């Protein structure tokens, strides 16, 4: 055997992911092609038909779809994702500028969601059928039902306009502060690295509301799956065994029951991460967050197809990689699966 079994498994999964991404690129590209809006008309509304034909020819838009797709993919493999008509920059450059903003927002949102969702789920499972459980269920239902765009606007209205608790929703950092030198791309972390605690604090305050709104969408699915998985694993004989031994909370609830519940929780979190990146578009628009989501939304509304395709590919790759990581994490969580993979 040339590779150890686990590595072979990873390689096989990566190969499958590549095929999936190729398929997605095809769909994204054809979608851009088939849409009725014409990028040339939307960019230059006041040109003659001859001029339009000339520009189309220059841009290669007169070629048949397969040729255009092949050209597109050839340049993608060279790291060239085309040029954004809206910003005038290359898409790669645009994304390099915006990706850290989205990553920082998503990270804080997901961490917030997990930090609250998992304990809520555990508490619900432990207090199953009691008042606490019912109250948490109502809270979850509410958290899931409230649309992010509405909540974002309401929070801005009260916390900023009315009470001045939150800073104004003008993106990652107020212009009063200079951006710290980029190390991680996370302004909060870069601020700390640069020793400018006021900048880090200001960036954190800017993040607070959008991360809360984004994270609230994570809390309730995580809490619900944690609750149901914990209820199941709490009924396992080995949990009862631990209770009979008089083992403490740390062993019985966290060591035995929560570890037993971890596989479905990680699976759900994997799904949610994909959703968070897609959902970031709304939150970023509401909070004027200079991230990928808003970039994609702007590109879609202006029929700027190169960024749209690239954003779709990026989100699809995120989902594919997350899924692979989730599958691999099973092996860490559960030795039975580890031995299964190794076979």
């Amino acid at each position, binding site marked *: 055997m040339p590779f150890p079994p686990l590595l072979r498994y990873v390689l096989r999964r990566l190969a499958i992911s590549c095929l999936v991404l190729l398929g997605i690129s095809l769909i994204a590209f054809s979608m851009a092609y088939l849409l009725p809006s014409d990028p040339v008309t939307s960019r230059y509304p006041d040109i003659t038909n001859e001029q339009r034909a000339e520009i189309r020819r220059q841009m290669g838009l007169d070629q048949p779809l397969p040729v255009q797709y092949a050209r597109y993919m050839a340049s993608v493999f060279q790291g060239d994702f085309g040029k954004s008509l809206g910003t005038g920059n290359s898409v790669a450059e645009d994304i390099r500028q915006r990706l850290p903003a989205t990553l920082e927002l998503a990270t804080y949102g997901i961490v917030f969601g997990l930090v609250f969702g998992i304990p809520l789920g555990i508490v619900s499972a432990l207090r199953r059928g009691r008042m606490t459980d019912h109250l948490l269920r109502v809270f979850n239902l509410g958290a899931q039902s409230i649309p992010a765009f509405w909540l974002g606007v309401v929070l801005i209205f009260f916390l900023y306009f009315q009470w001045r608790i939150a800073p104004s929703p003008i993106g990652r950092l107020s212009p009063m502060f200079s951006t710290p030198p980029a190390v991680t791309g996370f302004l909060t972390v870069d601020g700390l690295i640069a020793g400018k605690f006021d900048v880090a604090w200001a960036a954190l305050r800017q993040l607070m509301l959008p991360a809360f709104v984004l994270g609230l969408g994570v809390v309730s699915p995580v809490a619900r799956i944690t609750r149901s998985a914990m209820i199941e694993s709490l009924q396992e004989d*080995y949990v009862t065994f631990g209770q009979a031994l008089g083992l403490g909370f740390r062993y019985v609830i966290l060591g035995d029951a929560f570890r037993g519940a971890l596989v479905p929780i990680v699976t759900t979190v994997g799904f949610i991460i994909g959703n968070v990146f897609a959902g970031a578009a709304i939150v970023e628009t509401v909070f004027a967050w200079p991230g990928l989501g808003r970039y994609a939304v702007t590109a879609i509304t202006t029929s700027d197809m190169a960024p749209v395709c690239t954003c779709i590919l990026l989100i699809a790759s995120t989902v594919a990689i997350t899924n692979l990581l989730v599958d691999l994490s099973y092996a860490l969580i559960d030795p039975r699966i580890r031995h299964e993979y190794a076979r």
Partner: protein
Amino acid sequence: MNAPVLAVRNLTKLFADAARPDAMPVGVRGVSLEVARGEVVGLIGESGCGKTTLGRCIARLLDPDSGEVLVRDVPFSALKGHSLRNFRKNVQVVFQKPETCLNPRMTVAVFVREALRNFGIVANNAEARKRLVELASLVGLREAALEQYPHQLSGGERQRVAIMRALACEPELIVLDEPTSALDVSVQAQVLRTLKDLQTVVGTSFLFISHDVAVIRYMCARVLVMYLGVVVEEGPVEAVFGRPAHPYTRALLAAAPRIKPRAVDPIALRGELMLGDVRLDECPVRVRCPLAHARCVEAPPEFDLGDGHRSACWLSADTASRSVSPTAMKAAS
């Protein structure tokens, strides 16, 4: 003899059927029993007769509705919170299904070490390791199995691990809830032999729950026969199984397959257990008992047949010395 390791007094734990609120609740009704130090007591009865419920109440995995559980004269059933948790190590349970009672995500060593560490039985890892090896040899587990996960072990080995973990915190009493019924017959014999040898070495008291007459006969010195939440007959194994006084015990023995012809004249119960037919104030076996007669509409007390052999049947009053033990009367009323 000094205080019994376990004394159960008039323990009741009933479960009502939520779907049929008018049906008779099942569970345990006013059971009393004692287990002396180093004694192996059997608890036998058919499925649903409450033997597992009783075992779980004794281990405080369930809270009894009424009655008390004394462990070395400490009211285990009244303990709460921290003192309850600390006391739990004195009563351990071995569950029926060895495949589910081990944490699939821990190696045997880690799983058993939790028990050792929790009560500070061992000071450090080296000592824990030494104790683990000792325990493994005690329950007949090969040392290599310590580093393996439950799914890499056989059913018999898994049950040995469960016994090992229960034994790790040096309990006064182990409740074995059908520990071998999920195993192959050949493995059953090995595990039973290990348990028996182990019991003579460590001297821990066992409450051995089973539905298998042969297993109880092999393991136990004394046996309690349960039917529908009450103890119908109890006493030394030779007496109860050799000269069964209660029709239910006779039917139970008759139902057990044997190679040699049985000494007892076999009887069989009628039909199946229908909870709706049973009334609370009468003998629980009456509906199905072939020997039932007029007196059976009143629940019989336990009649003492001598040598600790007691039977809750009106007929045993005729065959026995007719001496009704006052404590048994009180327990049954």
